[in-house]
């Protein structure tokens, strides 16, 4: 059940087949273990509800406490159709309920996703509470208020030669098991699709996901709608299962139970909620029935949950996975210890042809590829950048130097549209990009490698590069959630070439956390490079590297410079003078001087800026 890796090495459909096998075997095995059919059915409904939630929480990193609203909506719509409206067909009603929940989820998502992190959690709690009150009061005519909607029918199919009647207990089980299976198959496709890959990237580092060119808000909203659809279907099935749609589906406790079950079973696994629900319902039966704890079983549950969150962060499935890995590791020790220093770039890698840059829309005539005019950034009373005029020609390598606090990084952030300038304009390839988003600008072919590594820390090297390459190949937003990642045209080629270029081919399946610092720096550059930018900004690419790594990285930068324009900030003057054709010196937020390395080296103003006038004292 290794659904969390993008490049799964297990044979195709193996998880699907195992799931199908387990679902078929369950009614033959579970009765001997003392499981009541209604408990098993309940677990399936919770499990299905949880699949969508896990895509939202485990894969996208959005912890919602408001899923009860969507569960209730789907359930009430389906139940209303089947009872009060006299709608005859159960499956169609379930689908309508699911669509209704997805539509409501879209609207709720528009509000809730305006903010991230804890704000998102708080807003979803508030939304769930609103739905609860609306269901109970203003809409009680439709929802039955506190009485709920009794008399929800179960599905019957007349296939001509045979009549299938799913009524209750084990006879309803096949219908629910089929729905769950369908839910798992679709979810597995989603998480293995390019769309699913981007969701993981957003979970790990939303800032970088946006910076490599993905429309983060769009993907989050899509994940929210998916979760809503699953919730809606599960809600409908709840009504069918109980022959009654209970109003307490809307309660905050429902959301809480879902969150807890998912965390108990293991987030980011798809099967976690099913495992969590099994544990939950088993504990309830065991503690309440066998031990006779009555209502206080929830106290035990609460304590168990707190301990689990504290010590078994990835839940039961995560714990088992770690145990298996540990046992395997002990059985066959692999040399996988993080290298002290980055593995050197293999000389052969040098011959890899660099990726072609974005085609430039017009000839490399006299027009600069990037022109900033009068760029100013003010933070309150602090003037970070003042009236900078700056132009870079097509194919140029430009160095930017300046003492600490000269405003170099702020200048870069404005060029990539991470921060909006207070005044001034930025023109890239002839179009004004001032005020555009960092995502749009990356899509246009302008991107940056960060001064402080911004990687997708829970993904492997190859997965990291994949995320960046996908942004170029698929554009900033695409709902290709049923397509396999392996079928994206040109993706593997682009990823492999990028990896070879930065010399990380041998380390491709290593998680970022196990990389040496120098390797992380190279991956940082690879992320920027993988989207084939026409203009690449590098913010201190050599910072913190050993002398040997510096030499290698300078070689790497030279090789990727072919056909590409680059602007590099660094404090390593020797390397920069070697790389750059022209140098711009910033001081106190202004352009001090601009010229060839030779001119800069002998410029009195530059020497004074760095040495603070010592020169004159020495000369005197």
């Amino acid at each position, binding site marked *: 059940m290794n659904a969390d890796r993008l490049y799964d090495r297990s044979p195709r459909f193996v998880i699907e087949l195992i799931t199908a096998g387990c679902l078929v075997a369950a009614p033959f095995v579970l009765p001997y273990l003392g499981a009541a059919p209604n408990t098993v059915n309940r677990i399936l409904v919770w499990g299905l509800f949880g699949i969508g939630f896990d895509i939202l929480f485990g894969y996208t990193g959005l912890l919602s406490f408001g899923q009860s609203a969507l569960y209730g909506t789907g359930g009430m719509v389906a139940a209303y159709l089947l009872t009060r409206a006299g709608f005859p067909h159960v499956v169609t009603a379930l689908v309508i309920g699911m669509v209704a929940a997805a539509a409501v989820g879209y609207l709720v998502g528009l509000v809730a996703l305006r903010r991230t992190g804890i704000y998102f959690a708080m*807003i979803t*709690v*508030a939304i769930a509470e609103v739905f609860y009150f*609306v269901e109970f*009061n203003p809409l009680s005519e439709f929802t039955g208020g506190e009485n709920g909607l009794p008399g929800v029918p179960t599905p019957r199919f007349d296939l001509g030669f045979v009549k299938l009647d799913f009524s209750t207990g084990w006879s309803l089980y096949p219908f629910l098991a089929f729905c769950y299976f369908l839910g798992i198959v679709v979810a597995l496709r989603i998480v293995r699709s390019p769309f699913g890959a981007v969701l993981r990237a957003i979970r790990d580092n939303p800032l970088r996901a946006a910076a490599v060119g993905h429309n983060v808000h769009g993907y989050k909203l899509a994940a929210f709608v998916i979760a809503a659809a699953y919730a809606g279907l599960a809600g409908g099935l709840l009504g069918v299962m109980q022959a009654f749609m209970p109003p307490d589906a809307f309660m905050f406790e429902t959301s809480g139970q879902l969150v807890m079950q998912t965390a108990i079973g293991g987030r980011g696994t798809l099967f976690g909620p099913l495992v969590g629900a099994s544990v939950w319902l088993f504990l309830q039966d065991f503690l309440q029935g066998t031990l006779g704890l009555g209502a206080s079983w929830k*106290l035990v549950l*609460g304590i168990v949950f*707190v301990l689990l969150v504290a010590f078994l*962060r990835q839940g039961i499935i995560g714990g088992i996975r770690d145990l298996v890995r540990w046992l395997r590791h002990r059985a066959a020790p692999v040399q996988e210890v993080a290298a002290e220093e980055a593995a050197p770039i293999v000389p052969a890698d040098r011959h890899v042809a660099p990726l072609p840059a974005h085609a430039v829309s017009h000839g490399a005539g006299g027009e600069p590829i990037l022109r900033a005019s009068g760029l100013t950034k003010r933070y309150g009373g602090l003037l970070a950048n003042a009236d900078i005029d700056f132009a870079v020609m097509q194919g140029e390598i430009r160095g930017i130097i300046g003492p600490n606090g000269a405003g170099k990084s702020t200048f870069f952030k404005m060029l990539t549209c991470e921060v909006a300038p207070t005044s001034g304009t930025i023109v890239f390839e002839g179009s004004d990009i001032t005020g555009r988003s960092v995502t749009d600008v990356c899509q246009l072919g302008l991107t940056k490698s960060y001064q402080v590594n911004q990687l997708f820390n829970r993904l492997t090297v190859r997965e990291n590069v994949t995320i960046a390459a996908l942004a170029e190949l698929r554009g900033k937003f695409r709902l290709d959630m049923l397509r396999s990642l392996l079928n994206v045209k040109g993706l593997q080629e682009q990823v492999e070439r990028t990896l070879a270029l930065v010399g990380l081919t041998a380390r491709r399946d290593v998680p970022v956390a196990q990389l040496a610092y120098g390797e992380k720096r190279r991956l940082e550059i690879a992320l920027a490079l993988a989207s084939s930018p026409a203009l690449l900004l590098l913010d201190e690419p050599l910072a913190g590297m050993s002398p040997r790594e510096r030499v290698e990285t300078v070689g790497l930068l030279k090789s990727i410079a072919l056909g590409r324009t680059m602007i590099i900030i660094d404090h390593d003057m020797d390397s920069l003078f070697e790389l750059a054709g022209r140098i711009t010196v910033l001081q106190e937020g202004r352009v001090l001087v601009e010229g060839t390395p030779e001119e800069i080296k002998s410029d009195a103003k530059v020497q004074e800026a760095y040495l603070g006038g010592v020169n004159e004292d020495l000369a005197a």
Partner: protein
Amino acid sequence: MINWANFISQVFNGLALGALLALISSGLTIIYGTLGVLNLAHGAMFMLGGYAGFVAYQATGSYIVAVAAGALSLLVLGIVMERVIIRHFYGRPHEDQLLVTFGLSICFVELVRFFFGSESRNVPPPGPLSGVVSLGFAIYPTYRVALMGIVAVALVVLFLVLYRTRLGMIVRAGIEDAVMVDSLGIDVYRVFMVVFGIGAMAAGFAGIVNAPVVSLTPEVGEAILVQTFVVVVIGGVGSFPGAVLGGLIAGEIISITSMINPGYAYVMLFAAMTLVLMLRPHGLLGTPGRE
């Protein structure tokens, strides 16, 4: 036709509820602002304060002792909770912090249910404050009027602590930049512990002074927690004035809507929150970049 006497008394009700929400939300918001942890057990702490006071009242029959017990026991609980559990979650993702505080809130609620059952408990208002008083426009329970004064005093005390003491200065600095405070040689972890204690105390105090108005049940904190969230979103995370303003706005919305149709109270509250999110995503008095 609007009944004006009724309307004014609802505005008054809203003021009372608003002040209470302001106090609870201040606790939540300074904890989040300083520690970066959203405490989902805050509502449960409000409830615990009420029950701690109830126990003290049963033992002594004194309202003053009950209030002191409610506030102080939550101060201690907050400090212990920060020391034993929350501290280990500073370096972990927000989701884990939410999960663990959510789990704790369930433990608190169920613990109370275990000892006190689900039936409601009452703490009567102190003798001199029982009965009703005429405010000119309406007859009003005396304790509710007094409650507004009590909560207002508590808010002023909190304000003085935050804005007029050395500790408060450190806390406010910590809300802006905890790393910077740490590098100035101040033991940030001790500050965190104290802040968590004060935040918990604010909830506990609110829980016990509110107990004579609403009877105590183990679930009493849940609704309060939701309202507190709306208050913080409206006012802006990490802002004490924002919590006060947001509390008063939320209190008035709930009260006035309830007069017309109680079923829509939450809808209106939510509409107000949505409006704020559209127009000022960081809250009315919040600062961008604090979440």
